[in-house]
């Protein structure tokens, strides 16, 4: 028996970048978050080679979950090819040796900023959302200690008050992204700044969603097949963005969430926000093989 057989040899970096105890903590906190859907669980939030606010929360969860057999997809505002998405994707591959993909159907682990892919996720897929501010009560209660008591008491009257105020002032609910939603009938969460369009996708979804805020050191989760209900008045129904009839000028995809591209003449053209869906639609149009999975929305309508 020698020291060499008892210890590991020195490596410049732990597998998946984070050290084992950091990953263990995040695993434990993630399990806790899954056990209490929608409840914000504090965690230590280590340093990663990226500035806080650029997805460090999501990155830490991804680094914890990743293994060499997991295929990784990273999206930023729907796009796989933005600088931020590409950097995170490369980083994850480099620290884990995991294969990468842009195709939602092939991915095992999807880290995303501000979108949920248009193709339905499956039970064997995990979605990690980067969250800048996990506290839905912050706009109505700046004191976080009191906000925590409010969660404990399910004291969410003021969330509705916020909606009331929006309707009174503007005639409609103005909350565009981060639409507060009740998880499993108990905790109100902010689903990260995904558009309203994506909120119904979380309701009774087959996949696990983990939402992690690195700067705020909190994560919460929506386990598979969990109710997620956007807060609404009984007599003012929830409405998603009016994108159902828009057509992507590049791919011809229709009935999905679009990016608006202002034109010189003052009009707008639209491109499908889920870039890989756009790519696959173009391939298919050009006669190339492309498998497009079942989508949450069909012809711009959410399947009931």
């Amino acid at each position, binding site marked *: 028996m020698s020291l060499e057989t008892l210890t590991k040899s020195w490596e410049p970096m732990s597998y998946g970048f984070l050290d084992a105890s950091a990953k263990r903590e995040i695993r434990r906190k993630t399990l806790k978050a899954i056990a209490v859907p929608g409840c914000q669980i504090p965690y230590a939030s280590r340093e990663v080679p990226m500035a806080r606010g650029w997805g460090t929360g999501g990155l830490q969860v991804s680094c914890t979950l990743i293994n060499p057999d997991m295929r990784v997809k990273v999206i930023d505002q729907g796009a796989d090819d933005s600088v931020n998405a590409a950097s995170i994707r490369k980083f994850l591959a480099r620290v884990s040796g995991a294969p990468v993909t842009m195709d939602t159907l092939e991915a095992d682990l999807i880290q995303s900023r501000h979108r949920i892919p248009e193709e339905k996720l499956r039970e064997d897929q995990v979605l990690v959302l980067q969250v800048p501010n996990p506290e839905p009560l912050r706009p109505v209660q700046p004191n976080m200690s009191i906000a925590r008591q409010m969660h404990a*008491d399910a004291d969410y*009257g*003021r969330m509705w*008050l916020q909606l*009331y105020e929006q309707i*009174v*002032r503007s005639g409609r609910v103005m909350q565009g992204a981060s639409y507060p939603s009740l998880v499993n009938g108990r905790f109100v969460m902010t689903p990260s700044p995904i558009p309203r369009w994506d909120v119904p996708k979380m309701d009774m979804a087959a996949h696990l969603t983990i939402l992690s805020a690195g700067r705020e050191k909190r994560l919460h989760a929506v386990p598979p097949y969990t109710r997620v209900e956007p807060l609404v*008045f*009984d007599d003012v129904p929830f409405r998603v963005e009016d994108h159902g009839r828009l057509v992507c000028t590049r791919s011809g995809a229709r009935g999905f969430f679009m990016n608006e591209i202002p034109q010189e003449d003052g009009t707008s053209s639209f491109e499908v926000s889920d870039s890989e869906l756009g790519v696959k639609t173009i391939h298919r149009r050009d006669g190339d093989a492309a498998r497009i999975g079942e989508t949450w929305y069909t012809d711009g309508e959410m399947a009931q």
Partner: protein
Amino acid sequence: MTLTLDAPRFVETKPLLTARNLSKSYGDVQALRDVSATVYPGEVLGIVGESGSGKSTFLRCLNLEETPDAGSYSLDLPDVQGNLFDLDRYGRRMLCATRIGIVYQNPHLGLLMGHSSSGNVAERLLVAGERRFEVLRDKARNALDASEFPLDRMDAPPIELSGGMQQRVQLAKAIALEPALLLLDEPTTGLDVSVQALVLDTLKRLQQERRITMVIVSHDLGVIRTLSDRVMVMRRGAVVEEGLADQVFQDPQHSYTQQLVHAKL
């Protein structure tokens, strides 16, 4: 010299509010000494005393914002049992939200100054679980109307309103759920005299029309006299005298009450 009064014999209803022997100290300062009170349904109890007499502390105890060191407090309402000071934070919040209304002297304590006035009223209803926008709107409008708030301003934030109007918003919020008990802490103090008269007048009318049980605290004898059926006089945390309002003002027994009455009348 004076006779000791008997226990009530003819009044058939039980007191709505029973507070027994409330005591509370802040460090060396004894804010309440053995303060007891009963209030019958539909009655208005006035509490007078100068600042520091403990009257506001007592009211905060009745609103369950403050827990005394000793004493008990009960409300005779369906589903409300036992000493209310034993309730946890959640129990207190739900009880206060649904059964007790309060109007503070300082509207900042009672209102979200940047939200709309109607929203402030609607919040009460939201806490109680109302989730229909139109119903919230109607009830907020009705409560503001009953408080004689000008409805064309119902969506203006209180911060843009005058002091008298802010008190009306507080009042509307307090009565929106038709509380069993309305607590008023110096509701007109700091307002111009003419505005004060109007707010008092609204309170009086509401009391006449709805028979709301009220406890009103003020250092202003005129306010207490206008509204109260019975009066409690407090000094240095203790009750020095209590009786029918006209009796306390016309025939005060305690030297302190005599001083108060003579100083003000």
